[in-house]
């Protein structure tokens, strides 16, 4: 444990392991925002995906069922958001915040209500097995990065694959191009025959579903132990909203961003042992307050937001119609 290389390896390993749910949340929110909707309900959506996915996974004793149910349950939150904001023209900020309030309320209601009947994850062998590390042959034997990057559970790799696929979908497919058009200027997209309504619905549901997968990951990471006071998601949904901005609405940059935010997130736990392992070079870590690490993702994002608004740079990925409802009769 005190071997410096060991500490470093574990630190890097945990940056990936603990923070992949952020990637799911972020990629889901990117899909949603690219369709022009600013969904502030990520936290609640992930909580709903987490609890229903976990319960279903335990009952069926199957990782696939858990993944599917978490996707569908969170997708329902996206559907609700779509009905209210796209069809019924409700305010997006308020709807999103309400989904968070409602989602967390439902999460605690279900969890508390089960009480003694709450299923332990050890009772569902295939969940435990599905979440255990898979060593990638060859690569996982590399020193330090072999353990840190190439011996993770299936869902870590799935998250990366989804991020890359979404990136490809947004940038290199016809539907991806149309989706971006809907987010930039729904009136123009509508006038050339793109079904804006359908695009918004499908991507709200799909994006929210991806967030739900992140929630399910979080449930498995917490070994399914339900605590009365703390939600599994523990603010990751809010960090994901920040990360979307940090990654400039690019899913591949989001992988990098997850590692950067994850670095601070994990440092707050590992600062002590890193300082102990490398007293000469990293001893100062002990003097930095842990709260600063927690605040840094939000602080950095705030600075990015301000800086990009000052520079008004060309390549900003923020959809022009983000947060605005599209009312066809006022086109």
């Amino acid at each position, binding site marked *: 444990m005190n071997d410096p290389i060991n500490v470093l390896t574990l630190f890097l390993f945990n940056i990936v392991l603990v923070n992949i749910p952020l990637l799911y949340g972020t990629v889901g929110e990117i899909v949603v925002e690219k369709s022009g909707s*600013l969904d*502030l309900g990520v936290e609640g959506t992930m909580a709903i995906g987490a609890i229903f996915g976990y319960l279903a996974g335990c009952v069926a004793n199957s990782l696939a069922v858990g993944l599917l149910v978490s996707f569908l349950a969170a997708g329902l939150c996206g559907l*609700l958001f779509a*009905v*209210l904001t796209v*069809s*019924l*023209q*409700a*305010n997006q*900020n*308020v*709807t999103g*915040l*309400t*989904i*968070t*309030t*409602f*989602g*967390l*309320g*439902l*999460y*605690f*209601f279900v969890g*508390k*209500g089960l*009480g003694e009947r709450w299923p332990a994850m050890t009772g569902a062998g295939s969940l435990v097995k599905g979440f255990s590390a898979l060593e990638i042959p060859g690569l996982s034997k590399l020193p330090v990065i072999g353990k840190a990057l190439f011996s993770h559970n299936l869902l870590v790799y799935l998250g990366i694959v989804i991020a890359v696929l979404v990136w490809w979908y947004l940038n290199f497919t016809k539907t991806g191009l149309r989706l971006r058009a809907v987010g930039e200027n729904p009136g123009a997209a509508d006038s050339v*025959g793109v079904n804006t309504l359908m695009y918004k619905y499908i991507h709200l549901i799909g994006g929210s579903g991806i967030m739900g997968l992140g929630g399910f990951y979080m449930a498995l990471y917490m070994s399914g132990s339900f605590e*009365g006071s703390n939600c599994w998601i523990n*603010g990751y949904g*809010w960090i994901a*909203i*920040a990360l979307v*901005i940090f990654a400039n609405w690019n899913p591949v940059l989001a992988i990098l961003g997850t590692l950067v935010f994850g670095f601070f997130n994990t440092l707050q736990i590992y600062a002590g042992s890193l300082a102990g392992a490398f007293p000469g070079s990293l001893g100062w870590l002990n003097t930095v*307050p*842990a*709260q*600063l690490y*927690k*605040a840094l993702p*939000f*602080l950095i*994002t*705030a600075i990015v*937001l*301000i800086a990009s*608004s*000052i520079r*008004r740079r060309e390549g900003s990925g*923020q959809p022009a119609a983000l*947060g605005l409802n599209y*009312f*066809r*009769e006022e086109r």
Partner: protein
Amino acid sequence: MKNRQPLFHVVKRDHAGPGRQAAAYVAAVVLALLVGAVLLMVQGVEPVTFYKQLLTMGIPGSRYPWRSVENFIKLFVPLLITSMALALAFKMRFWNIGGEGQFIMGAFWAGFAAMKLGGTLPQPLMVVVMALCGALGGGLYGVFVAALKVKWGTNETLLTLMLNYVALYFLQYFAETKTDWNFFLDPDSARPKFAKFPANAQMITIPIGPFNLNLSLVIAAVLCVLLYIYLNYTKRGYEIAVVGDSPNTARYAGMKVGKIVIRTIFLSAALIGLAGAFQVSSAGILSTSVTNDVGWTGVVVAWLAKLNMVGIVVASLLITVLQFGCQTASTTYPSIDANFANLLQGVILFIVLAADFFTRFRLARTRKEAAK
């Protein structure tokens, strides 16, 4: 391409009748309670007795009924002031969702004043100083965003959201750091713990028989009247409405839009800071959960009330009853916790958001000649 015409299309209504809206709201609350009742039955809890406890908030039959009323007021006042302040910003279409952060800053600076000057000033003066510190702390934290928005068009929704967490961890730092200079903490406790404020830094209460009326309730009521007049009968209030409707119209009319935005957001954030100051001086101690989520709940209340000051009083009363009632009822039903209030609140707002559509728009038959 085949030219299909939908049978119906959506048209904006000119005005919505107040009766229609009131009916929609009553229906929303009833429906939410019904949904809640079904969920309660699933959990094996008898809904009628649960709701009875929730709505009476455990006051009848309690040994200290007045104590419950006092605690209710402590929950109600911060929510009421915060919701009114948020409505002010929302009227201008400025999406201040940084209520949490501004509230924390208000509480923090009021706490700062209490710990630094607590022993030296008489109570009435101390309460005023704390209120001013809180208002200034919250106001500056909010006006900073407004200035950026005016100057460079920074997205205020996302920026205020980020600043909520910066403020939270800022407060946590003082809550969890045990050092010599940290005068916020209790010196007698080995582990870090906020110290109680000196007695003269606590909110003034007016004893009426067995009941102690919290002065902040009176101030909140006065604020409510003042804001109503400000919004409806003053030039500045009119300017807020015009900027909210269309910044360009305001500009053509010769209004200085930037100045109006900055002034209004400072007022909005300062009121939230004031609510934070009232909260800590009523509690007599700082806490990292000082906001009790009013920054979020305030958005819900302001929206439920359609940004109308009278509506906000009603809506924040309703939400406080739900929250305080769930807290009391959950002591008898361990399987239902206080979060049940959030669930009900969510359902109510979903229904209201959906019902709003039918008060703002109507479905019109698409006529053949119009289609051409």
